[in-house]
């Protein structure tokens, strides 16, 4: 042992040579991200769990297709995203209230005063509620990019579209979110 945790790339290299334990460690590292990605796509925790599992199993079956030296994360996101989208096409439950579920449980981080904390919470509630009202494509691309913090390339892999499509789709979605917020402020 080298006395340090193996990097994702090192684990993937081992996995491509048939080391199932290395692959399972990769799954452990990525399971939360994969689950949340699938949850945002499907809107249902049980479906998201199943899609993430299917994606990881499929990725293992297809591990010979992984190109040495490539980043494991977008490769895994592509397969998990595809599993989630296939499940959605296949008629899985699809809740549109996925973002509202978090509203009641969110924490308000350290604020200089109770009043500031209340204002911060209100601002977040407004943003969350407005985001939740956007049409599905807009909500999904913003959520993947900004709520999960995926790069544009990773969003593209997850959605199975070119990066340029993500860029333009994200730009339009953000414009619509901005318009909605401005409209509410004006009212």
């Amino acid at each position: 042992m080298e006395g340090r945790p193996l990097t994702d790339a090192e684990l993937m290299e081992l996995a491509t040579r048939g080391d199932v334990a290395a692959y399972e460690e990769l799954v452990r590292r990525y399971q939360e991200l994969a689950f949340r990605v699938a949850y945002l796509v499907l809107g249902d925790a049980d479906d998201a769990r199943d899609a993430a599992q299917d994606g990881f199993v499929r990725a293992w079956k297809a591990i010979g297709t992984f190109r040495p030296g490539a980043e494991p994360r977008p490769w895994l996101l592509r397969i998990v995203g595809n599993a989630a989208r296939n499940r959605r096409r296949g008629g899985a439950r699809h809740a549109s209230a996925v973002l509202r579920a978090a509203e009641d449980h969110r924490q308000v981080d350290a604020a200089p005063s109770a009043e500031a904390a209340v204002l911060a919470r209100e601002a977040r509630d407004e943003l969350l509620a407005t985001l939740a009202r956007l049409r599905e494509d807009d909500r999904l691309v913003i959520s993947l990019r900004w709520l999960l913090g995926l790069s544009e390339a990773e969003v593209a892999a997850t959605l199975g579209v070119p990066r340029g499509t993500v860029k333009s789709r994200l730009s339009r979605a953000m414009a619509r979110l901005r318009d909605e917020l401005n409209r509410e402020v004006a009212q």
Partner: protein
Amino acid sequence: MSIPGDSLEARLVALAEAMEYPPTPDIAGAVARRLEREPVPTFGRRWPQPRLRFALGLSLLVLAVLGLIAAIGFAVGGLRLTPAPADPSLSVGGRGFGERVSLEVARERADFMVRVPTLDGLGDADRVYVATPPAGGQVSLVYGARPGYPVDPESGVGLVVTAFRADIGPETFEKLVSLDIRVEAVTVRDRPAWWIAGGDHVIVYRDADGDLVESSVRMVGDTLVWEEEGVTYRVEGAPSLEAAAAVAESLR
């Protein structure tokens, strides 16, 4: 008052920190249990050298995309995707493969000799589809579970054998060489063939607006593809190259 762009992104970042998701289940444990039941994948195959990889990848991918495009059909003004449904039963919709017909009708309509697998244990196809375009027709033989050819849980299909005339221009395929599917040059029926491994075939098609769209749409599974007497054949969904080649060699 308006919402400046930079502050909107900052607000989303702050919101991200406060978001709460359902607890992540033990996916790793479940995956580990499922992997115990999975056949061991093939390891150690490597991509060939870059120049060969480019040439091989480009030629194969053209064929693969031609096949996939033909499998999904296309309409005037661009290609139209019709992914197979994720239903556990044998339920691939007629739209994806064309019109469901008898083998005899498929043979009448196709502009080429329709060969069928004669591999022991495979028997007759459960469903036969014919589609046009492509010109000359496309015939798909769809099988449910067979010994050695388990059903894919997502597509509900064990095996698909497709034949069509490859007469579609390869004008849209230049981007495909960068994609993460693995291609292996093999020989079947004494002809060059390619084994496309990876659960997710990535294809490029032209949408109704004429825009190129790159889409990751799973069809049935790993694919063996070759051309024979002007007809492109694809065997999809077999659990291994060897199993796909056995089907290919048995075509009569």
